[in-house]
């Protein structure tokens, strides 16, 4: 019947982002996880979540054939890799 094809990770990561003039969100260019760099090849969706005054941006991106969900805690400037789905 179902459903969740994502595998939960929830690990803190380093990210390389581009702040483009006029863009509503910083663009995620690449991130480093487990000593490996992942170059973002597609940004599928970015959405905003708010818990009290704390704002987070949730990125759903593609790196080659895999999909990664990452969270930017805007206030703390912290990136987390939340989940991934391999394209196999």
């Amino acid at each position, binding site marked *: *019947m*179902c*459903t969740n094809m994502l595998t939960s990770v929830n690990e803190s990561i380093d990210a390389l982002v581009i702040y483009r003039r006029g863009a509503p969100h910083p663009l995620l260019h690449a991130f480093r996880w487990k000593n490996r760099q992942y170059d973002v090849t597609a940004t599928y*969706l970015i*959405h905003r979540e708010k818990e*009290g*005054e704390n704002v987070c941006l949730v990125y*759903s991106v593609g790196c080659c054939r895999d999909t990664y969900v990452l969270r930017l805690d805007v206030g703390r400037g912290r990136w987390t890799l939340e989940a991934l789905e391999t394209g196999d």
Partner: protein
Amino acid sequence: MQRVIMHLDMDSYFASVEQQALPSLRGKPIGVTGRPTERSIVVAASREAKRYGVRTGMPVWEALKACPDLLLVSGNPERYLSVTKRFIEILKEYTALLEVYSIDEVFMDVTQEAPKRGGAVRMAEEIRGRFHEELGEYITSTIGIAAGKTFAKLIGARNKPNGIGRLDPEEIPELLASTRVGDVWGIGRRIEARLDRVGIRTLHELGHASEQFLKREFGVYGLHLHEIGQGKDSTPLVPYTEVPAPKSVGHSKSLPPELRDISLALIVLRDLCDKAARRMRRLGYMGRTVHCGFRVGSIGPHHGKQTTLALPANDGETIYEACLTVLDKISVKPEKVSNIGVSIGNLVPTEKTLCSLLETDQRRERLNAAVDRIRDQYGDRSIRLGTSLLVRPIPQHVGGFFMASDDLEVG
């Protein structure tokens, strides 16, 4: 000058957003649910699922019968709300006369702007192009264009999904003849049945009915029906800048089987009262009429009554106590309920109410203010009633993706 109204409706909205976020869902029949269990309902079906007959509101077990390969996806209301805010920001660049009708539907009066952008159809194409570029290729919309809201919505529905439909004046007679009254926005089953009893089934027939008869049968609404039957629609657009004051504030919850026992349902009700009270305080209102009701069984009738408070209130405890009084008045005393809810009406702006001089009321007011400050800073889940810990936490949006209109504030 004839108005040019656009009705923009996102296609299979929640499902499309999920497919945009997760490419592996694309091209597959998916159903967005509150909880992916057979007891849940489908709150949105992807266009692929719709081809199998899966519809919004369908119980999951029925949807799986229609489409055994259906993939169930837990919905993410914050994600949808965030995308809605984004597309509304885009639309605001086209006109300020924009009415946010729901999380996935918008009306726009583009009478002034359309000629400057090469006409309404070209403008609609441009909007859809912006959506494609800025929201993603899987989040599509359908735009209906006509001289009034009702007809814009109607012509849009005929061009779904991912289309643009324009109703020209010379096409109106054909549309009136081919449209059943029940297909028109605002004409519900009851009105349709009443019209059917007097032989009115199409808009054309509605337009030929006597105005006096419709007024006698349906009051002022009858005049609107007559106008629609004539192919006219003067329903005003309510721009987001002039959102009318709320008439009531309420919350209800469909309960999973493990919470249907009345004693547990009352704990959920206490939480709902708290939630409604907080919304009222945030909006700056107090209410006097408290309506409380429940449903027994998934398709059983709704049992509800109301009471009037001596003084307006926006405190969860006061509202809950009023609910208990209301429930006492209802003759049906079930052991289990499937849905429970509260609604507070007769709202007055807080600044127009008298301050209570009672120390207990003042203390409660200070407590509410402190709790609101904590929740504003750390989120609604940061502080909650101890009683709510007695029930297993239930997903935020079980049984439907309720979005309060104030969640959609776009000003």
